[in-house]
């Protein structure tokens, strides 16, 4: 972050004309694939992300099964052509880390105890990437999981905030992510208000953190509204966990 010089706020407006607390445009859909138990598609700015769930199903290898609950594993993958410079196929260190933090967040709300000894595999395919893919992915993965019928104590909603040209703003796009001073992705359990994912890199004072955190949570709550509407529209009953 903060390497090259680039003016990101001009006349009080961001490069794409958004206000500081404004989300990019978001579209959502569920039940978009045939071969998965549940699936979702999310467009968020220029990001296009597909998520799908296989399972609950037999977990291999056998000796790693958990007799108390299902093991939920998320695999985040970027298509080679999803970014400007072609990405070699296969997992790199970044995608291994993102897969892990998404797995952790989803596992925190899914009622895994219902399916002992099984595996639930959530696959996230980034078809076009434009900053903020981990939040888009977690939102899509959460929709796909709900769409699959696995009971959840709550949905997972997410949004990032950040700092550009010294200002705290919501939902960074590509240039803001590249040349900004900080990125703070947050995923929450919206009904409970709990934090399920929190990462940050860059540089924030104590006060800036609070401001950025609150802004991200506000964003995530707006996204939650869209998630609920999408699921209701699709006539899928989201089982509300106890």
């Amino acid at each position, binding site marked *: 972050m903060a390497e090259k010089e680039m003016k990101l706020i001009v006349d009080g407006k961001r490069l794409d004309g958004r206000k500081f607390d404004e989300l990019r445009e978001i579209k959502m859909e569920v039940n978009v694939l045939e071969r998965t138990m549940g699936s979702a598609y999310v467009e968020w700015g220029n990001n296009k992300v597909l998520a799908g769930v296989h399972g609950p199903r037999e977990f291999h290898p056998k000796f790693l099964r958990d007799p108390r609950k299902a093991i939920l594993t998320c695999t985040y993958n970027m*298509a080679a052509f999803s970014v400007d410079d072609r990405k070699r196929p296969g997992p790199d260190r970044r995608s291994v880390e993102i897969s892990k933090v998404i797995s952790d967040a989803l596992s925190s709300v899914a009622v895994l105890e219902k399916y002992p000894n099984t595996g639930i595999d959530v696959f996230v395919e980034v078809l076009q990437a434009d900053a903020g893919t981990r939040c888009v992915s977690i939102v899509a993965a959460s929709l796909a999981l709900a769409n699959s019928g696995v009971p959840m104590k709550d949905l997972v909603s997410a949004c990032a905030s950040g700092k550009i040209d010294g200002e705290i703003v919501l939902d960074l796009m590509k240039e803001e992510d590249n040349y900004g001073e900080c990125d703070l992705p947050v995923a929450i359990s919206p009904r409970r208000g709990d934090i399920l994912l929190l990462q940050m890199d860059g540089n924030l004072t104590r006060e800036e953190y609070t401001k950025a955190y609150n802004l991200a949570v506000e964003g995530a709550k707006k996204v939650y509204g869209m998630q609920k509407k999408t699921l209701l529209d699709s006539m899928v009953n989201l089982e509300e966990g106890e």
Partner: protein
Amino acid sequence: MNIEEYLRRDYVATLLKEGRRIDNRKLDEFREIKIEKGYSSEKAPGSAFIYLGNTKVLVGISMDVGEPYPDRPESGVMTTNVELRPIASPLFESGPPREKAIEIARVVDRGIRESGAIDLEKLYIEEDRVWIAFIDIHVLDDGGNILDAAGIAAIAALLDTRIPRYEDGVVVRGEWTGKLPVTCTPVPVTHAKIGDKLVVDPNLEEEYARETQLTVTTTDTINAMQKSGIGAFSSEDVDSAIDTSFKKAQEIREIVEG
């Protein structure tokens, strides 16, 4: 194979003896094809999303600058990769491409390469610098006949492809100097043999029921053929498949180019 699979497989074969397909198509009828070119156009120089019935494949083309092959110093380079993403089927696994993905990639590659669909000579830039076209085939939903979906989407994506600006040894992303030179539209047509019948564009259930299959990729000539799977064809089977392939390819070509 469980009982249910076995019964459905049997049902597909029994119906076909009467000349009927499980989804009521004619033996030489493809499922509906929808193609969305430019699906990933904000990042990829070329792309196309295909729906072939329930089968969904996204192909993206990346353009980069690199060295030519030593034995063809004035030609651009093309390379084809298939990812059978685990999201596409509960039967696909994570990890490096295996046999099936490699075979699909190589058959699609041969159709495009041998027909000369990409005019590689025009991808020469300067000494030791040529354009490399990466054809990345991302399989997202396996409803059967991935090969044809991949091959059709690949040529559609190539037709959509723009060449980025190249200045002072650097590719300028997001700015374009023209279209990729594409000279023709090779189309693969796959024929599954079930009992003694041949059907084109097998769906998933037909794939379970088939013994072997033959893919024929044509332009105005035959450019690639591939028998795949355990089992045999008669020479009459192949003759008939070739004739059908020319005919169906022409229909599909109109969709791709349209």
